[in-house]
């Protein structure tokens, strides 16, 4: 059953880092890949994920290490110098830590539709391979999840990974509790392998990318006694746009009756109000949505009695064009 698979490097482990947010299946993808490698491909493998509080929309990193059968894997440190980085949500690319440590000859696979290449990718090494696939678009069409598509793309990019056996492991993972997903996942997996595009001339840097190490300024040496935080920071500086998964509410001011129901069901205070114009019937009027904070739950759309808020597919740049800032003096 086990064939001899030769990994690309004989002197070190083959390391993959999946960068994602909760809800897109990165943890399951890493697990499936490592299981396939160990149980079907005769390799040694290790997988674990790192995330803060377990929430949909919060950052998740999943690490996979693969090695030959005769070499035990004794490390469970995060993957700092990956051979491959798979990015599940393109907005994560605006954070330099997402690509940190990528090897000079490494591969980046990221989820985005066709179109202009993001400027941040110029920071990649010149020699790195850059592959793009519309994982969300394919997943929505096939009623699967982005992880199935990206696993297919990963196997396509690295032929030493036996795509048939990874697909088998993917199907086994879900056949127990979600048998209805197996066929959809298979379609998504195959399309992921077939429909990725390799982009040329993207990276302009030389050598491996530097490793990012978090260096907090506050610690036992610098903090006030007792752990009191005298000037706490405020969450308004967080940009939650990356936690949306494909849709956002669009506001049509003509239809709005300014009843306030949307505001009473939004847990995130995304709706921006202002005093009504002089002589208007309404003391307060809704003027727009601050998409910096919108997570796309669509409760406002559900609650609006006048259909002034409608659900639309999010395309790149749409949120920024429509956004009305909640704190215009503070945060643009």
């Amino acid at each position: 059953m086990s064939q001899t698979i030769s990994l690309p490097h004989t002197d070190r482990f083959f390391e993959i880092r999946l960068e994602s947010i909760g809800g897109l299946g990165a943890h399951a993808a890493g697990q499936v890949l490592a299981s396939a490698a160990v149980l079907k491909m005769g390799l040694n493998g290790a997988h674990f994920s790192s995330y803060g509080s377990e929430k949909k929309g919060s950052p998740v990193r999943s690490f996979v290490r693969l090695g030959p059968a005769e070499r035990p894997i004794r490390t469970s440190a995060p993957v700092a110098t990956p051979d491959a980085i798979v990015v599940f949500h393109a907005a994560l690319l605006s954070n330099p830590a997402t690509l940190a440590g990528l090897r000079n000859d490494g591969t980046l696979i990221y989820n985005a539709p066709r179109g202009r290449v993001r400027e941040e990718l110029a920071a990649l090494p010149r020699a790195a391979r850059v592959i793009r696939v519309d994982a969300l678009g394919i997943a929505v069409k096939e009623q699967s999840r982005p992880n199935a598509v990206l696993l297919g793309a990963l196997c396509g990019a690295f032929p030493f990974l036996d795509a048939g056996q990874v697909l088998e492991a993917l199907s086994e993972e879900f056949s127990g509790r979600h048998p209805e997903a197996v066929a959809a996942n298979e379609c998504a997996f195959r399309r992921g392998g077939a429909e990725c595009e390799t982009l040329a001339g993207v990276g302009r840097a030389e050598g491996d990318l530097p490793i990012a190490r978090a260096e907090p300024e506050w610690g036992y040496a610098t903090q006030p006694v007792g752990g009191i935080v005298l000037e706490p920071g405020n969450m308004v500086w967080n940009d939650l746009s990356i936690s949306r998964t494909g849709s956002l509410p669009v506001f049509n001011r003509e239809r709005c009756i300014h009843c306030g129901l949307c505001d009473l069901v939004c847990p995130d205070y995304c709706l921006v109000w202002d005093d009504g114009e002089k002589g208007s019937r309404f003391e307060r009027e809704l003027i727009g949505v601050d998409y910096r904070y919108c997570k796309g739950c669509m409760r406002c759309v559900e609650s609006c009695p006048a259909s002034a808020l409608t659900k639309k597919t999010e395309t790149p740049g749409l949120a920024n064009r429509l956004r009305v800032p909640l704190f215009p003096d503070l945060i643009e």
Partner: protein
Amino acid sequence: MTVAVRTQTLPPIKLIRNVPKEEYYVPGHRTCAGCGPALQYKLVAKAAGPNTIFIGPTGCMYVANASYLCTPYTVPWMHAQITNGGAIASGIEAAYKVLLRKGKREGELPNIIVMAGDGGTVDIGLQAMSAMMYRGHDVLFICYDNEAYANTGIQSSPTTPYGANTTFTPPGSAIPEGKTLYPKDPPQLVIGGHPAVKYVATASVAYPVDLINKVRKALNVQGPTFVHIHAPCPKGWKFDEAKTIEVARLAIDTGMWNCYEWENGEYRYQFKPKKYKPVREYLKLQARFAHLSDVHIAKLQAFVDAKVKARGIPVETPVPTPQAH
């Protein structure tokens, strides 16, 4: 020299139009999209106003809201262990009372609100909550009920309904309904055993104006008060996050949740349906109940019917009580 301690009085509101404009719970927190508890937190913060201190026992409304050095609250807030929300609040209240009485601090006693989850109220947090109610501190204890220990990945808690699928109560061949135990009743626990408590209320995110008024009323009452808020959790209960309000409303329409106030021995009910809808309508929206058979649903219906009757809510039950076995 001792000074009489003055407390605030917050007026009730009649319409959505009168809901206060000011927000004391700002965006940017990392709760899930459509989070029910985050919504109730926003409404409670609006109701309480600026002269407030929140105490946050560990749970979704601590972990998802705060990261180190950074919170979404614009009023002072302190973390408590999941076990001791009541204890921390007692200490804060006693300290403020002493400072005010001795004239070392001016102004009114701040609203002191514990924002605890169902686990932090009636399970792991029960002891400190009950002790605080017994000692009679002027604190509002809010239980936001998402019917599980949600923050750690949805484990069952004493308010998880019979038949719910959680990671601790997974349905299988040996235990087909998943959860076999019926839930505790937090407001009855408080009402039944604590003589110092003068006001207890239950509310839901489905009716925000009512929620705001109940919180204000509880804050106006001197002494310990308890408000139990139904806050559906889209991830834990497995429903589309856009439907949170619909689920909360159906809970009330089927009797799974009852909105009432208890003040000095008298009950007042709100949003009593003229005719209750069958529990099945509420269950079918949530995948955490998808595994239940008709026998299990009948058992749950019987439990709901008995609970509604016991409250003294006059009602015509939709299905005859079956022979449960």
